[in-house]
């Protein structure tokens, strides 16, 4: 039972354009959401997060949007750079008492020069 879903296995964009990665979740108890970036042969690296009390969080070129009613979040990268090419994982956490991260399957982003 996939509680966090990333339905696009891959995404290819041109350098300088916007990358939009999408994520859906089914568990309404999730109240904190995160994006991780993973390069081959490395562990996931935290990118950006958002609490369920917010609908947007921005950090430089990265913005995460949360639509609680649709149980959907998205990560926008503007402008995209070739170094952004990696696998991006969406993850969710429940309320305090459950610190485990529930990950999606990931989306492989390729930014072409």
């Amino acid at each position, binding site marked *: 039972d996939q509680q*966090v879903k*990333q339905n696009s296995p891959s995404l290819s964009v041109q350098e300088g354009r916007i990358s939009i990665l999408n994520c859906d979740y089914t568990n309404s108890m999730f109240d*904190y959401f*995160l994006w*991780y970036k993973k390069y081959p*042969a*490395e*562990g*996931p*690296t*935290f990118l950006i*997060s958002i609490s369920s009390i917010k609908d947007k969080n921005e950090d430089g070129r990265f913005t995460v949007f949360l639509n609680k009613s649709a149980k959907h979040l998205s990560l926008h990268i503007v402008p995209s750079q070739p170094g952004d090419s990696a696998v991006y*994982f969406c*993850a969710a*956490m429940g309320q305090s008492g*459950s*610190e*485990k*991260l*529930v*990950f*999606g*399957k*990931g989306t492989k982003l390729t930014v072409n020069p």
Partner: protein
Amino acid sequence: DAGVTQSPTHLIKTRGQHVTLRCSPISGHKSVSWYQQVLGQGPQFIFQYYEKEERGRGNFPDRFSARQFPNYSSELNVNALLLGDSALYLCASSWDRAWGNGYTFGSGTRLTVV
């Protein structure tokens, strides 16, 4: 400062054998979590330890066990290995039972069961 250190980096085992994976957290971090990432999937939660006590367990069989030592390092043990246990095993540490942005992951141990 050293990040999260996992050993070994790669391992090949035969079905039915036992394996021990090791993790050293970032200095000062008291919480260690283990995740299994099978090819093509996202990481799946196995265990979390905080101050040497188990704080959470994922949906894994009893063949999987773990412990945390007084220096906060941790071991993940898997008995009676199956082909399906082949995966990247990730360790993550945090200073507290933190929200996910507090977790730092190691580079993982790639286990292949043949």
